[in-house]
Every structure is written in C-alpha cells, then in structure tokens.
C-alpha cells in the first residue's frame, strides 16, 4: 500500500493507471507490482492524509499536554529501522519531560483518553476518525495493556514486504507494542476480522456517547483536538483554556521534527511520515518495493535534497523561500501577505507558498477518486475533513517554516510533510472541493454562502468561488425547525375506543384511567425534564410501572400500545420537534409573525441559546426531542407484554409503509433528475407523501430496533467468551424483522430509496453482538455493496439527490460505534442483488423524490458543515472576543395589516388541521379525493366550454393578424 502511494508520488507509476485501477472493479491487476487490494490501499491513503494534516489540524494554542501515556507512534510498519526508532523515542521522551509540567489539559484526562484507546471520540467526532483498524501498522503504547485482546484488522493488513520487516522492528527499542500486536499476524484475514470486530472500538462507543454530552466544555474539545474549537468557544462558555494559557512557541529541534503534536485520535499506527534528516536514517526504498533498509549515507541524502529542490523550482512558478535555507525565516512572506493579523498564531494561507504542488495534485486526484468511487466509508466524513483542512489554522512561527523546509528535504516521498503548512492544506482542500463540486453544490444555501465567502476559497480558486455563488441560487435546503404549537393528544375514536372494544367493563375503565395517567406523565416530563438533576426513572418510573401493573391486571396492553405508538407518531413524526417549553413563552408574539418568520426566529433563538458545538458529521444515534420520553418510558416500563405488542404493531406498520405506492410523474424523468424542477402539483403531492412516509418509517424503525435490541444492550463491548455463547444462542432465534429479505426485495424492485433509510435507522440500534449475527452481517454487507455502487457522479437512472440521501445515511451507519469497522474494508461481500430489469412498474429509485429539505431532515448532521465554516468566520474576525454572528434582525410588524392577515391565515390552517385531527383518517382522504375530483372536473368543464370558445374566436381572427402577433411574440 505504502509502496503504491510512494511510487505514485515519485512518479514511478502513472497516476492515471492508479486512478483507473481505483475506478475499475474488474482489473485489479493492471499494476504489475501491485499486490495490494483496494480495500487496503484506501484506508492507507486516508490515514496517510490524516497523519499528514495532524499538525495543521491540532495546532491550536501550544498546550503540549504530552504525558507518557499519550499515544505516540512508535512501531512502524513500513520503515521502522531500529536506529530511527531509537532516535525518535529519545527525542520524544525528552519532550515529554520538557513540557509535561506545563500541560494545561489535565494529564488524567489525557491518559484516560489514550487508555480508552486512541479511538475515543472518534465515533462522535468528525473527520480524523479513521480508526486504527484500517491503518496498516501497529498500536500506540498507550493501549498496550489491551493488546492481547484488542486487535484489529489493520494489524493484520500486511503487505508481503511488510512482514519481512517484523524482526527488525522488534529490535527497535520502543516498538514492543508493534511486536505484540503482530504475534498473530501470520494467521491472516479471517482471524483478523473476527478479532477486529470483536475487540476494537468497544470502549469507543461508550466514550463516543459521553462525548456528546461533554462537548460543550472546552477542555474536552481541546482534548479531542477538534479543529480549533478552543479558539471558538461555544456560546456560554466564558473562558477557554486557549485564552487562559499563554500561548507557547515550540521550537522543535530537527530531531523531534516528527509529529510534535501527535493526536490521540488519528491512527498512530501509521508510520510517522517525516523523519529527521540528521542521524543516519534509512530512507526507504524509492523504487516502490520495500527493499531492506540499507542505510543511505548523508551524502546520498543531500543528493536527494538537491534533486528535490530543482524539481520544486521547476514546478512552482511563484517565488518560494528557498527550501535549502532552513535557517532563514522567511519573514517577507508574512509581510507581503494580504492580511496581516496582529495575531501571530494564524497565518493567512497564500497560494504562492504552497509546496509540493505536483505531489499535492496527485494526492488530490487519488483522494477525489476514492471519494467519487465511494471507496471511502463515509463521503461526508471526508468532505468534512476537507473543510477542516480548509479552515485549519496553523501556528506561524519561524521554526515552522524551518521545519517545513527541513521536512521538505526528506528523501522519502512518504515522509515529506505535504500537509503540514496551512498553505498546502488549503490548496489541497480547495482542489478537492473543486473536484467534488457537484457534491458540494448540493449542500444547503447557508453553507454554500459561507464557502463562497470564505476568503481562502476566494484567493485560491476564484473560479470555485464563482461556481459556489451560482450554486447558491439553486440550493433550496434550509434547516427549519418545524413549528409545533403544542402537543396534540391522540383523539378518542368511538369506533376503536368505546366500551364495545374492550372485553370487560373493568378493562374499559382501567384504560380510561391509564390514558389519563400517561398524559399526566407526558406533561410532567415536558415541564421538568430539562431541570438539572431530574431523573426520569426516579420521578416517573414508579408511576409508569403502576400503569403497567394495571394494564396487566386488566389484560389491555394492546390498547395501550396503540395509544403509545399513536402519540409517538403524533409528536415525533415531524422533522424536528422542539420542546414546547420555550415557545409557549412568547407564543402570542411569535404567532403574529406568521409561520415563516416564526421559523426564522426559532432558528435565531436556537443559535443564541444553544452552544455552538461542532459535533462532526457522524453523531451517534440519538432520540431527539420527545422521542426521548418514549424511549425512557419503554425503558422504565420494562414490560414484556407492552414491548411485544409494540413490536408487533411497529413491524406491521413498517412493512405496510414499505409497500406504499408512490406514483411516478407521467413523463420527463429524463436528464437523470439533475436539474429538478418543482414539478406540477401532483408530483409535488407525491413527493410530499413520500417524504412523510419515509420520515414515519424511519421513526418507527428506530423504535422497533430499539425495542428489539434493548434486551441485548450492554454498555461495554462484551468479552470474547460471552460473545461466542450469545452469538450461538441468538443465531437460532427468528429475528423480529427479516432484514435481508426486506432489503433484497427492495433492491430487486428498486425501492431502496424508501427501504434503505429506514433499515439504516433500524440497524443503527443494534447491540454489539447484533452485527455479527449472520442475518445482520449479510444485510450490512449488502448495504455496503449498495453504497459502493452508488457513485454520485455517475450519470445513471437514479437521480442525484436520491443517491445522495442513500450515500449519506449509509455512510453514517458505517461510522456508528456498534457497526464493526472491519466490515467496510473487506472483500467478503460480493453477491449483488440483481434488479429486476423488467419490473412492470418503475421502481421508486428512479423517481426524483428526494429534495434537499428531505435530505437535511434525514441527515441533520449535514448542518455540521455550516457550523464549521461559521465557526471559522467568527473565529477569524473576532478572535478571543467570543463569537460574533451575522444576524439580520427582523422587526416584528405588530399592527401591520398584512401581519394580522397572515396570522388569520395561519389560524385557518390550524383550524383545518385541528378538524381533521379529531376525525378518522378516512374522512381526510375522502375530502381530499372529492376536492381533487371537483377541481379536475371544473378544469375539464372550462376547457370544454370557455377555452373552446376562446380558441374558436382566436381561429376566426384573420391570418395576417395572427402572423403579426407571431412576429411580436418570437
């Protein structure tokens, strides 16, 4: 893998060939010397980029919290020469001594994070989340103690030459970890998979969840090394460590040039990519093959440097600071910079300072290909990483320049720091964005505006900026929290709820009481659940179990289950349900503004009230808003009868929804749905219907998954013994939902656009062992193949946004904690479900059903792009002074006639909804049908009479008049 990348970068192999190889599934052997698989190369490339950029992304203020337990790369897979290792470990240990007393982050936390494995927070957090499992090398020492158990696929992913290095590596003093990990390396793939998926990331998920809760407080953010969040404290947090600590300049010595800011989050298992030029270190094989490390003399190295210099001189047109002049800080560069900020910590990137231009372009090409071909596990995660690079801020110091140049001297193409300098990062990011423009253009308007207004984009690629500006007009997506006035109850329907529906008077009267208690609990929860220290089970648990007892005595669980589900759907079906606690306050005032401005005000309020936390594009599954009540209710009730009834009902409803027929528009699907028109009314209605079915199915599926896997949930990943027994136990049991059948049926009939999003919700609730069960593993594999097939830029029948939704939800699923990470990079799955070519009715997949609104509703994490960019903007304009947001004030037109009129209209709409709400659903359908027929007949009638007459009259107009009219018109 490394060899391949190396040979590409050193132009031993034509980039086109590699790209072709990546694109083409069939000819994997077009590279004669390449024996690597794509599923090995891709994670290597991704990790390589993470490694490369780790400094640019972690920079922050210099708070080197290096504790001995902090993960550091020690063992190396590709080039671990003993002397090099020794030298490095010496260097790092000295740094530890130097800085550890000044550490601002608490060492406890730090070591904890490391101990929990470098993966902690990964699931919750953003782009550098490629876990160790994919990386080609070994483990940080911080996680040594678990090595006997914690092994992962990556540890076994050894390319043949790599194996031969083993012995040497072991000899390297600090590489014990590597040795340990490798002990089973020879056993190969299958074992690796098992151990990998059993053991990796166990803690990760737990941490991931807790992270979400913690993320508001800056220290944790810092610890996570999340891009710049220390500099962008969330609203409400007054002081951040960044401000309280004096920033510290690091003058790294050449010896310690490698990764002074190692990150716990990225994969430490990869090779550190730059090494000190000083001591005789072995530059690895440049010929792409891993020849044994014959130490190259300094002389040879100088030769290499010279070559490199001339190469760069040719490539880079703009004047560059001489790379061979490391001791001269190039201050001129700063002064000529377009923006000189008083803050010495940030550098404004300049195109002229980009180094390794051609190599970067090669990387861009490789990386973009991986993204376009869906070879990466989550397209949006990569996009987020790119945006992070775009908004990276690296401390600008002399030594940095120095370092950069020094590292530029490196003879090993893989060890050069391509992405150390902010200039390079931004260049890389902008290039990738250019490459992935179509994908970017489908983001929401606000993100596009922020991107277009980003000065870095403007200065690096004015063309991209212009395209982004244009794309804004087409973008329709906006995240508007739905305006829910207040909760509705489930209406009492005599047909289903009166005495005749109950077996006994007792049942009838018991249910009457339990219904009232249920709502009492709901109201109490609404009022109080946000109070600090409020505990669901302590306050409501007793009463909930009381309800359950009463239900059991009367045997009326099914009635209650129906009420429960109806209420769930009622309250949680909408895109995003805000707790009404806030909106009641000024509801009268807000009501006057009409729904539109009300939504805007809500968003404004949200922005001001909620901390501005960037969570990253892969948040773990959650139960937002009122869903939390229902989840906690089920948990507190712990009533098997209720759960059974709920499951029955959920399953039935889901499968019904899955079968729902959506009419395709009569014609003009044409052009791949690229430019989607709003379509006529009917098509709009169908779209509307589809989105409501989809959202409902997703909600139900999530709860079905929750209830089904609830009995198996464990907070910790179970040990291997427990694993095997429970796997054996559970494999015999029929599953609540035959996911494989549902999925393959849906693929055959091309209805994945409906089925996959809800299946993803269902599967996201899996417990740790669930994914190992054959049925779910097969389903995951099928989903993976589907994901790979959905290349966004291929012009296929399926329209872009449909694909984008699927890619987005699937990418999210692959990143959540319980889904084993090995699943993505295997070649285990190959059976592709064939679509029925002669499907009598065109499948849903081919209809442009998804719009941006729906995409953003289903994937709220897409909003993270906007947050990231907004944080960058606010950070760059007002550093340290909190976040300044651009808010256009709206004035409340209190006594204005139109406003009053608008509220009247709103009231009418509400009244209509309220009317239908308390009626059986059939009434609404009937009314809609009648209205539609009447309208249609009226149009027909008018066509036949009025229009006919007009046409007749028109025809009687003399021909010459007509022609003159024609001339006028055309």
């Amino acid at each position, binding site marked *: 893998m490394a060899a391949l990348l190396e040979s590409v970068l050193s132009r031993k192999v034509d980039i086109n060939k590699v790209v072709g190889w990546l694109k083409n599934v069939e000819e994997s052997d077009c590279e004669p010397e390449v024996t690597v698989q794509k599923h090995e190369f891709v994670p290597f490339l991704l990790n390589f980029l993470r490694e490369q950029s780790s400094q640019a992304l972690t920079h922050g203020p210099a708070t080197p919290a290096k504790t001995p337990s902090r993960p550091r790369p020690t063992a190396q897979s590709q080039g671990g020469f003993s002397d090099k290792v020794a030298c490095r470990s010496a260097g790092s240990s000295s740094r530890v001594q130097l800085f550890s007393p000044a550490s601002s982050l608490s060492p406890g936390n730090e070591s904890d994070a490391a101990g929990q494995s470098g993966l902690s927070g990964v699931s919750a957090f953003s782009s550098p989340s490629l876990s160790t499992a994919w990386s080609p090398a070994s483990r940080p020492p911080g996680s040594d103690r678990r090595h006997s158990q914690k092994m992962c696929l990556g540890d076994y992913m050894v390319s043949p030459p790599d194996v031969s290095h083993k012995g040497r590596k072991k000899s390297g003093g600090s590489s014990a970890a590597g040795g340990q990990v490798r002990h089973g390396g020879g056993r190969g793939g299958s074992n690796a998979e098992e151990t990998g998926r059993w053991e990796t990331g166990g803690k990760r998920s737990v941490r991931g969840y807790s992270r979400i809760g913690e993320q508001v407080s800056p220290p944790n953010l810092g610890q996570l090394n999340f891009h710049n969040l220390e500099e962008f404290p969330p609203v409400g947090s007054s002081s951040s460590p960044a401000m309280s600590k004096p920033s510290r300049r690091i003058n790294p010595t050449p010896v310690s040039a490698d990764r002074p800011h190692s990150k716990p989050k990225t994969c430490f298992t990869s090779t550190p990519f730059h090494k000190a030029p000083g001591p005789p270190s072995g530059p690895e094989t440049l010929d792409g093959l891993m020849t044994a490390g014959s130490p190259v003399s300094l002389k040879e190295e100088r030769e290499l440097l010279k070559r490199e210099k001339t190469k760069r001189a040719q490539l880079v047109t703009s004047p560059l600071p001489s790379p061979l002049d490391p001791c001269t800080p190039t201050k001129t560069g700063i002064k000529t910079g377009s923006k000189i900020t008083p803050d010495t910590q940030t550098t404004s990137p300049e195109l002229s300072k980009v180094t390794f231009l051609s190599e970067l372009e090669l990387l861009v090409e490789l990386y973009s290909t991986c993204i376009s071909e869906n070879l990466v596990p989550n397209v949006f995660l990569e996009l987020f990483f790119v945006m992070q690079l775009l908004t990276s801020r690296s401390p600008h110091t002399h030594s940095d320049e120095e370092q950069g140049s020094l590292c530029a001297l490196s003879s090993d193409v893989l060890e050069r720091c391509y992405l150390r300098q902010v200039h390079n990062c931004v260049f890389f990011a902008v290039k990738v964005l250019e490459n992935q423009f179509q994908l970017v253009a489908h983001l929401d308007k606000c993100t596009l505006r922020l991107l277009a207004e980003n000065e870095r984009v403007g200065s690096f690629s004015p063309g991209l900026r212009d395209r982004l500006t244009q794309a804004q007009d087409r973008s329709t997506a906006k995240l508007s929290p739905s305006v829910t*006035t*207040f909760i*509705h*109850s489930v*209406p*009492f329907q*005599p047909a289903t*709820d*009166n*005495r*005749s529906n109950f077996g006994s008077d007792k049942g*009838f*009267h018991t*249910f*009457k009481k339990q*219904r*009232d208690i*249920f*709502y*009492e609990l709901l*109201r109490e929860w609404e009022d109080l659940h946000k109070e600090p220290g409020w505990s669901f089970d302590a306050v409501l648990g007793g009463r909930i179990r009381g309800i359950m007892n009463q239900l059991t005595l009367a045997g009326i669980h099914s009635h209650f289950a129906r009420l429960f589900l109806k209420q769930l759907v009622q309250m949680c079906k909408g895109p995003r349900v805000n707790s*009404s606690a806030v909106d*009641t306050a000024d*509801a*009268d005032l807000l*009501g006057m503004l009409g729904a539109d401005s009300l939504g805007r005000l809500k968003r404004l309020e949200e922005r001001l009230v909620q901390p501005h936390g960037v969570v990253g594009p892969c948040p773990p599954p959650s139960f937002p808003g009122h869903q939390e009540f229902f989840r906690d209710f089920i948990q507190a009730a712990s009533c098997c009868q209720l759960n059974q009834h709920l499951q029955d009902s959920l399953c039935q409803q889901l499968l019904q929804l899955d079968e729902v027929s959506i009419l395709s528009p009569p014609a003009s699907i044409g052009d791949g749905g690229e430019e989607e028109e709003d379509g006529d009314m009917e098509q709009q209605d169908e779209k509307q219907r589809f989105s409501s079915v989809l959202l409902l199915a997703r909600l139900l599926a999530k709860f079905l998954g929750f209830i089904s896997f609830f009995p198996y949930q464990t907070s910790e990943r179970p040990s291997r013994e427990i694993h095997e027994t429970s796997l054996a136990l559970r494999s015999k049991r029929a599953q609540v939902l035959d996911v494989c059948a549902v999925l393959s049926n849906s693929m055959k009939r091309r209805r994945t656009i409906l089925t996959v999003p809800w299946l993803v919700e269902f599967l996201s609730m899996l417990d740790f062992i669930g994914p190992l069960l054959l049925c779910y593993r097969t389903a995951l594999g099928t989903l993976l193949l589907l994901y790979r097939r959905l290349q966004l830029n291929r012009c296929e029948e399926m329209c872009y946004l449909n694909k984008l939704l699927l890619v987005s939800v699937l990418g999210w699923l692959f990143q959540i904690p319980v889904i084993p990470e090995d699943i993505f990079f295997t070649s285990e799955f190959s059976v592709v479900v064939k679509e029925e070519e002669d499907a009598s009715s065109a499948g849903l997949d081919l209809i442009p059903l998804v719009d941006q609104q729906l995409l953003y509703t289903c994937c709220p994490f897409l909003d993270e792009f906007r947050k990231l960019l907004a944080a960058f903007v606010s950070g760059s304009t007002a550093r340290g002074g909190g976040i300044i947001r651009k808010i256009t004030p709206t004035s409340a037109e209190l006594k204005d*006639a*139109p406003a009053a*009129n608008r*509220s*009247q*209209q709103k*009231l*009418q709409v*509400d*009244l*209509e909804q*309220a*009317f239908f*709400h*308390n009626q059986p659903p059939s009434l609404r359908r009937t009314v809609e049908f009648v209205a539609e027929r009447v309208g249609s007949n009226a149009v027909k009638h008018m066509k036949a009479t009025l229009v006919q007459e007009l046409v007749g009259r028109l025809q009687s107009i003399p021909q010459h008049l007509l022609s003159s009219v024609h001339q006028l018109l055309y």
Partner: protein
Amino acid sequence: MRLSRAEYKEIVRWTGQLRPTRQCMKMLKDKFPNHSQSTLLSIFSLEYQKRTKRTISRHHAPDVIEIYYQRYLTEAKAHPTAPVLLELANEVDLSPALMARIILDRFLQDMDGGMPSKSVISSMLKEPSLIPDQILAKNVYQCTINDCCYGPLVDCIKHVIGQEHEILLCDKLKEKNLSFLDENQLRTMGYDKTPDIILEVPVAVEGHIIHWIESKASFGDDHSHRTYLKEQFWSYWNRFGPGLVIYWYGFIGELDCQRDRGILLKDCFPTDIVTLCHTTQKERSEEGRKEDKK
C-alpha cells in the same frame, strides 16, 4: 367575572365569619357592591363548604350528637313554635341543613331502634311532611329553607342553575351556527369521558383552537379548579385536544395560565370566535384592493 387573586383573597377573608343565612348574604353584598351577587354567593358557598369539611367531624361525634339531640328535645318542648333547631345550628356554627340531618337521623334511631337508611333521610329532608313528628318536621323545614349552602333546596337550585347554563350555552352555540354534540349524545356513543359540549368543527377563541366546552355554574377558585383539572379538563384534553371552560360566576384570573397548553378559561360565552371558513381569500383580496388604492 374575572377576579385577581388579591380581590379574591379579600372576599374570602371577609366571608370567614359569616353564617350561611340570608342576612349574612346581604351583608356580603353590601360590602362588595362591585361584584355580582352570584359570584359572591358562589365564593361564599365554596368557602363555607371548605369550612364545614374542616369542622364536620366535631359535630359528628356520638356524644356531641347526643347533646344536640337532648337540647333540641328540651327546647322544642319548652317552645313548640320557636325555630329552635335553626337557632341551635347557628349557635354551634353548623349548617342548619346538616344539623337537621343529624337530629333527624338521631330521631329515627330512637323510633325504629335501627340505623335509618340514607335514602329515607334524604326523602324526609326533601319532604318534611313525611316526618312522623310534626314539630320536628317544622323545624327541619325551617332549617332547609334558611340554609343557602346545604340541603335539598340548595342542591336543587344548583342543579337547575347548572342545567340552565348548559342550555344557555347550547343556545349561544346554535345562535352562532356552530355544530356540536352534547353530553347525552356522547354518552350514547360510548365516550368514556364527556364534556358538556364537543364541537364537531373546532373554532378558535381569542386565537386558541378549542374542541370542547365545559360549563361550570360556579366560581373557579384554586381548589375546585385543581380538582376539575385533574378529574375532567385534562381528561378531555387527553381525548379531544384543547378546549374551553366557562366559569359563569367568574374565576381567579391567575388560573387561566394553561392557554398554550390547551385549557382556556372564560367567565362568559366568548365573543371573539373564528370559525373555519374561507373568508380569508376574500379578505385578502379586499386588503389587496385597499393597498392598491394607497
């Protein structure tokens, strides 16, 4: 009439010493001339009931009953024409009607030896001529007609007032051309909880949508409102959504705090009613024309 909590407290404080007699009612009315008689009476009645609940056990002790009964017997013998029972009730600060019930109960025990049934006592209170002892009958009669808080007469009046207001409400709804189902219709349809009125098509009152109306011919104070909420109003909300409660004799204004939650309080039939109709289209075009003229 919507009272602020302070006003209400003032009235309550003043009713503390009053007895449930006509004279006292007149005093109350004179003291608060700005408030309607029904409101004052309703507040007093509620307060008096609370007071009675607190003290009734004192009068129900067997030895106390015995003392009352013996006093009645001796005084009735001495002054056969005097309203001795009524005076006794006022003297010991017990509702006359309740005093009559206690004495009658004791009297019947003496006569039959056993425990008289409740229905017999009730019917005798309603119809004193059924009481075998003429003097007692007269005394019981005096007690029930002079009590404005307890007794069959008051129950009857209350019931009639309740009915009257329900009919009034129905009339108003018909007048407004609103379609509704009343309690009896709902009961036959098998509803488990039945408000007085369910609107078949919801309307908006003061901007709040309502599905049902409950009529209460009393004053809405904290205690009664809390009880009603728990036993009736929330139950209605749980089944039919938001609704309107009319306390015809007023309520404590501060209690009307659940509007956004879906319980609206009024002291009269609302005037600001918006119905579901298609006038908006017309209004809009009219407004458009107005704007054009500008």
